[in-house]
């Protein structure tokens, strides 16, 4: 990866203008993934001076700026209280020195299939703010095509929820090759499967059955496997992913029913 020019942006508008000017201009996040490609970019845009490095509490929501590090999320007492699933998910990502520079904006924008951040956030009620004004539901953003948008904030509705979060990795600091994330809010369930290996999605039929009070684990796991496409890659076979999803769903619902 190379840049011809490095620009420190001083406003969200300036970032939007630079992105609009050339497809070859790019926002710099934690750099951990960007550095691994071989492209040459015209301008690398530094967003560290935009005040997007704060976690702010409002009456009904928590706003996380795009430049907030995963380590700041891990240590946030506010998020531990309202969104512990995110805290737990980020704490599994590589090591402290990685999390000190990896950002929530970069994690969400990249929409990686193996993303712990996305799989965890999907079990909450989350909006993604793009370009400083538009808001889009996270699940829509995750399924959308990657384009030159500027993820400025992650907005999480404050709710009282129970969470369960499970992953399997080849080693403790590796990326996950399956994620099952669940939540229960006012007797409504969310079930998310990530690292399928493609992008994380809701298991909508399974969620509906849980909402209706179905407690037969075999029925729930069959429903989940029928509706969620799992595949094979270098990390895991489809068969092994299916096996793990069954185990994690069972553990998850039992934990939420307690």
């Amino acid at each position, binding site marked *: *990866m*190379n*840049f*011809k*020019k*490095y620009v420190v942006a001083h406003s969200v508008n300036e970032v939007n203008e630079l992105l609009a000017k050339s497809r070859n201009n790019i926002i*710099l996040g*934690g*750099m*951990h993934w960007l*550095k*691994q490609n071989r492209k040459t970019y015209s301008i*690398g845009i*530094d967003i*560290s001076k935009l005040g997007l490095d704060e976690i702010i509490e409002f009456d009904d929501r928590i706003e996380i700026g795009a430049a907030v590090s995963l*380590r700041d999320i891990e240590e946030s007492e506010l998020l531990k209280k309202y969104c512990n699933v995110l805290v737990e998910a980020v*704490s599994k990502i*590589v*090591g*402290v*020195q*990685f999390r*000190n*520079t990896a950002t929530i904006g970069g994690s969400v924008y990249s929409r990686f299939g193996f993303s712990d951040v996305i799989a965890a956030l999907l079990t909450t009620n989350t909006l993604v703010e793009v370009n400083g004004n538009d808001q889009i539901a996270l699940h829509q953003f995750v399924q959308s095509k990657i384009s030159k948008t500027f993820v400025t904030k992650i907005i999480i509705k404050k709710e009282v929820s129970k969470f369960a979060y499970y992953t399997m990795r080849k080693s*403790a*600091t590796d990326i996950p090759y399956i994620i099952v994330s669940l939540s229960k809010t006012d007797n409504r369930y969310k079930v998310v499967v990530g690292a399928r290996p493609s992008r994380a999605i809701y298991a909508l039929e399974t969620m509906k059955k849980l909402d209706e009070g179905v407690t037969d684990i075999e029925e729930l796991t069959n429903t989940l496997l029928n509706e969620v496409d799992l595949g094979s890659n270098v990390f895991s076979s489809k068969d092994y992913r299916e096996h793990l999803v069954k185990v994690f769903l069972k553990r998850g619902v039992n934990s939420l029913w307690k």
Partner: protein
Amino acid sequence: MEITCKINGKIYTDTINPSEFLIDFLRRNGLVSVKRGCETSNCGLCSVLINGKVSLSCSVLAASVVDKEILTLEGLGEESLRIGMLMAAEGTEQCGYCSPGFIMSVISMKNNLKDPSEENIKQYLAGNLCRCSGYEGQMRAIKNYLKDGKNE
């Protein structure tokens, strides 16, 4: 482009390529304790402190550390020797390639965690890989180091 930052208490001003990573900038300036390992942000060999936070210098652009304070093993002085001796006493120094990054993480942990448990230590240092030892020796060395600190 030109940058100015403070490294181990000394002001550095230099001309860099906008794509240059901090690890290359540091090594170019003689701070060769900073080691290159995985290039995929996994091994922790290149760990340095940036404004007190342990970070991977292989993933931080030199252009982004303007006006920041960088601490490498060279800036630790006697402290690095002390940790190094404790590690050697426990037989953890085999190839020694991971030691500088490991020591920087231990310093960061000492500054940030109060009375860490063995589990806390394991979690904090999960991003520092060693292919020679089985981590048991390092764990004993860290515990001795933290105990020494308490007795001071």
